[in-house]
Structure formats: C-alpha cells, structure tokens
C-alpha cells in the first residue's frame, strides 16, 4: 500500500487498529462506536470553526474585521462562546411545558447526528452503508420538524409559536422539492445508497470528473437542491422562522444557555449534513475534481467541498434579504415543484436520448425555457418589476 493511499485510508486503518485490541465478537461494535465518536467529535469541531469563519466572512463582506480578540485571529472565539453559553443561566419560562421544552433541543441534535450515519465522508468512510441510505437521511430529516415544533409550542411564547408554525410549514413545503430534486440522482444511479451514488460519479473524461452537476439536469437539480436545502435548514434568505426582525428569535426565543447552544449546534449540523448530501449527490462526494488531483486524500476533498458549500451559504446570507412567508410558500409550490418535476422528466429523457451534443442542447434549452417562462409569469403575476420615477422641477 502506497503512502498516499494509506493517508487516504488513515481513519479507516486507525479504526481497525484500535478495534484490533478487542475480542473478535466485540470488534464490529467497537468499530461502530469509534466511527460514531469520530463523527460526534469532528462535526461539532467544524461547527466551532464555522461560527468563526461565518462571522469573519460576514464581517469582511460588510467591511468589518469580524471577531479578532480571543486567541490568534479570533479563532478561539467559539471556546469563549461555549464557556459563555455553558455558564449562562438556563431560563425556562414560568408557564413553559418543562419536559417538552427540555426535550426539544435534545431531539433536534440527536436527529441531526443520525443523519450523518449515511454520509460518505471519504473512501470506505461511511458509518452505515445502507441500501436505502438516502431514504434514511430524508426520514431522519423529517423528524427535526418535530423538535422545532416542540420548542416553539412548549415555550408558551407567541413569537415562538409563530416561528415554529412557520418553520414547520416551511420545512414540509421544501421537503417535497428537496426529495424530488434528489430523485433525479436516484433515477440515474439506480440506487438509494449514498456510497454507490458517489462511486457512480467517480470516472473522468479527460481530466474532468463525471459529476452530476456537469449535466443540465444535474445542474438544475443541484441549484434546486441547494435552494431547498437553504430553506430546510432555515438559512438566509429563508430564515423566517428565526427572523430576528420579526419574531425576535423564532422558535428558540425562550431558550438560553446550554439549550440555546444545542439548538445552535443542531442548526449548523443540519446545514453540514444537508451540504454534505448536496456534495454527495451532485458534486462527486469525496471524489477529486480533476483526475490529476487524485492523490489528495478523499476525506480532504469532502471537507474542502463542505467548506466551499458553507462559504456559499455565508455569502448568500451576507447578501440577500429575507422572503416573506407566503412568498416562500408560493416559491416552493409554484416554482420549485414544477421545476423539479420538469427536471425529472428531463433526466428521464436524457437517459434515453443516447450520447451526443443534441441531448445537451435539448435538455438545457427545455430547462432554461421553463425557468424563464415560469419566472416571468410569476413576476408578472405579482406585478413586480423595475420602475421608473418622475421628477418635479
């Protein structure tokens, strides 16, 4: 085994090595525990780094410096934040439903962590290579809604309740396009297994990889998936459930201290897992972007891509204002849903059109035309558009 491939498999080897100290019948169990520990350690670590990067990135977008006081370049800021939130008083409203109020963040974090189980982080690096892995991810993702509802309802705060209602309505609505845009990939790969999906994108033409994003339907699917993912994780411009200018902090208005931190963690982990799935489905997972870069460890690519996706999310957050609830719903049902359905059709057509430039042209043209048409109709329907102004001398 060459050094590079050893580096590629370093975590797998490490896992086997540690598990080797245990009796044979315990080894699978220990291996699983090790992998879980790895995930549970790694992603909150990324969460910590991301909070700093997000604040610094937003700062730079806004011509500020961002946090730079704690530690070198402010990178110990999450430590300070963590200590702060752990030592803060845990306030439970007087009239709150104590048990549900407590369970809500726990349920969220647990559900979100479960989603990582089927995420292939690198070659041979997936906790559970399930046959129905993608379905598992969506099933788990659906249960986060419940925790959001629990948080909002149990706080006995009107803002929380409004935020929870918004969040749940939004998550349910966007689950449909999310699922449908991922279905394209399932159609093409013929498998719900995340590992197989990544492997299907492993080849190269020349030095360009066979990522699904480089096909018309893949690109459309990717864009739609990212939009739905933003909505699903309540990120800007779909951050209505916690829109601080309207609902104070939405469903976690009444949370403080550690529970608030848990919510925060859950939100970011949800973002990572969904970004990870966007990478897995459309961006070739842990595959290298160019054939000559194959020597870099696969997990390195995965995390690099994850970082890129997070940067995109931050960039969008720094730029876009927030939508309104009914617009959000309209967007989901009137734009996202038709587009995803059309994308399914286009993907099917692609499959049966054979090789050649023609299918590229036709598929792109159909998607583009539908996009332009739909967008125009929607904008005109709402009487939106640029305006001119008159002047009085």
């Amino acid at each position, binding site marked *: 085994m060459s050094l590079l491939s050893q580096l590629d498999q370093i975590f797998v080897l490490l896992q086997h090595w540690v598990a080797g100290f245990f009796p044979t019948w315990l080894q699978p169990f220990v291996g699983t525990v090790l992998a879980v520990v790895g995930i549970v350690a790694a992603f909150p670590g990324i969460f910590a780094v991301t909070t700093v990067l997000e604040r610094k990135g937003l700062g730079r977008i806004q011509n500020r410096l961002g946090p730079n006081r704690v530690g070198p370049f402010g990178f110990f800021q999450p430590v300070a934040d963590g200590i702060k939130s752990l030592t803060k008083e845990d306030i439970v409203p*007087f*009239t709150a439903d104590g048990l549900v109020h407590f369970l809500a963040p726990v349920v969220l974090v647990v559900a979100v962590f479960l989603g990582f189980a089927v995420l292939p982080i690198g070659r041979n690096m997936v906790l559970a290579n399930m046959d129905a892995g993608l379905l598992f991810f969506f099933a788990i993702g659906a249960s986060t809604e419940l925790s959001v509802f629990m948080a909002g*309802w149990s706080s*006995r705060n009107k803002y929380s*309740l409004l935020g929870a209602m918004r969040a749940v309505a939004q998550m349910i609505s966007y689950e449909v396009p999310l699922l449908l845009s991922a279905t394209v990939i399932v159609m093409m790969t013929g498998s719900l297994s995340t590992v197989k999906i990544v492997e299907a994108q492993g080849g190269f033409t020349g030095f360009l990889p066979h990522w699904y994003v480089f096909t018309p339907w893949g690109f459309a699917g990717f864009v739609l998936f990212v939009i739905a993912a933003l909505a699903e994780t309540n990120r800007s411009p779909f951050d209505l459930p916690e829109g601080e200018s309207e609902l104070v902090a939405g469903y976690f208005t009444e949370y403080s201290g550690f529970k608030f931190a848990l919510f925060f963690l859950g939100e970011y982990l949800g973002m990572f897992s969904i970004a990870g799935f966007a990478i897995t489905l459309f961006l070739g997972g842990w595959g290298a972007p160019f054939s000559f870069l194959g020597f870099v460890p696969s997990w390195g690519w995965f995390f690099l891509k994850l970082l890129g996706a997070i940067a995109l999310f931050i960039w969008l957050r720094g730029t876009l204002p927030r939508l309104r609830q009914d617009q959000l719903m309209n967007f989901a049902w009137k734009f996202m849903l038709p587009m995803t359905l059309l994308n399914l059709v286009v993907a099917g057509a692609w499959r049966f059109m054979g090789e050649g430039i023609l299918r590229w042209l036709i598929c792109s043209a159909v998607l583009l035309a539908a996009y332009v048409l739909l967008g125009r109709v929607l904008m005109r329907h709402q009487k939106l558009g640029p305006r001119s102004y008159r002047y009085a001398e």
Partner: protein
Amino acid sequence: MKSTEEILAMIQAALPAAHVELVLNPSPSAQHSLRVAPADAFAVASFLRESVELALDYCSNVTGVDWPDKEITEKVKVTQLVDGEEKVVEETVKRIEPGCLEAVYHLYSMRRAHEAIAGPVVLRMRTVNRTDQVQLPSLTFVWRAAEFQEREIFDLFGIVFTGHPDLRRILMWDEFEDHPMRRDYVDPDDYEYEPTPHDEVLKRAEAQSKSAGVTA
C-alpha cells in the same frame, strides 16, 4: 396666498354665523391668527379645507398653549365713606383674569403649495377655563394629522377633545394623573415609583399558572 384678513372675510362671507376674530401677532414673523369659537370650529375648519381657493388640506402642527390665571393689580378710584364723608380714594384691587387653554392649528395647502409663498394660516380655539375637564371639539375628522397631536394635547395639557376617535394618553402612561405641560404643574416628589400596568400583568400570569395548562 391671501392675508389673514382676507381669509377672515371669506369665512365670514361663507359662514356668517361663525364667531371668528383676528389675533394680531406683533413679532417680525407677522403670522397672524384666527380665533374661532369652539362651537363653530368644525364648520370653519371644514370650510377652510374644502374651499377651492384656500384648499388648506394640510394641517401641519397642532399644539396647546396654557394661559394661566393672571393676577392683575390695578389702581381703581373708589368712593368710600371715610369718617362719615364721601371721598374718592385710590385703592389697589387685585383682579384675577381667568386663564384658559388654547389649541393652535397651523394650516397649509399642499394642493396649491406652489402658487405663492404660503405662511401658515393659524387657527386657535380657547377653552372656557382651565379646570380639569375642559373641552374643545376635535378636528381629527377634518385633518387626520390632528389625531396624535390632539391626543398629545389631551395628555400634556388636559384638553378633552370631544369627538376624537381614540382619546387616550399618548406620551405619559395611562395611570399618570397630572398634565405636565401646564404651567402650574409640579413634579411629583418621588417619580421613581408610579403604578404601572405591570402589576396587573403579574397577577394575571399568576392566575394563569395556577390552572394546570396554559393557552399557547
């Protein structure tokens, strides 16, 4: 733009029964005003707004002025019986000129704004006295702009505007009792504590928490 005298003449021509008088302003600004009897105020105000020539459709400023009771010392010659014979004696008499509260409306025209330099047309109304429940007719239905400003006058001066759709305190809290812009207002001794609606809120919360479940 017409001078105040001309406007007065127009009002008198249109509403002969209305009591309107001219109040001169001696300062260099020369913004003279019209004092209207409260009973006629609504008719006069409506006329000013609807009149095509004046079109005073914009009420810029509404405010109150407090004119407290003035003690006037005068020397009066009185015939008196002094030592059995009548004499004319000079005597100082203290007379109290009753004060009043005044509401002042500054009107402009937006529709005819660009035709000439428009000074404000000033409309004033006086209450009878300055006891607690003095009343003036509200002009909110003529100019919506007066809505909050009349509330403010009610709050700070204590003029009750009859016919105002929503006459509540606006700047001071509801439990406050005095009218701080009156000239005889005395600061309360201890302004740290004033009853607030919060006590009631607490009470309600307690009652709610006693019943097992609480409405969301």
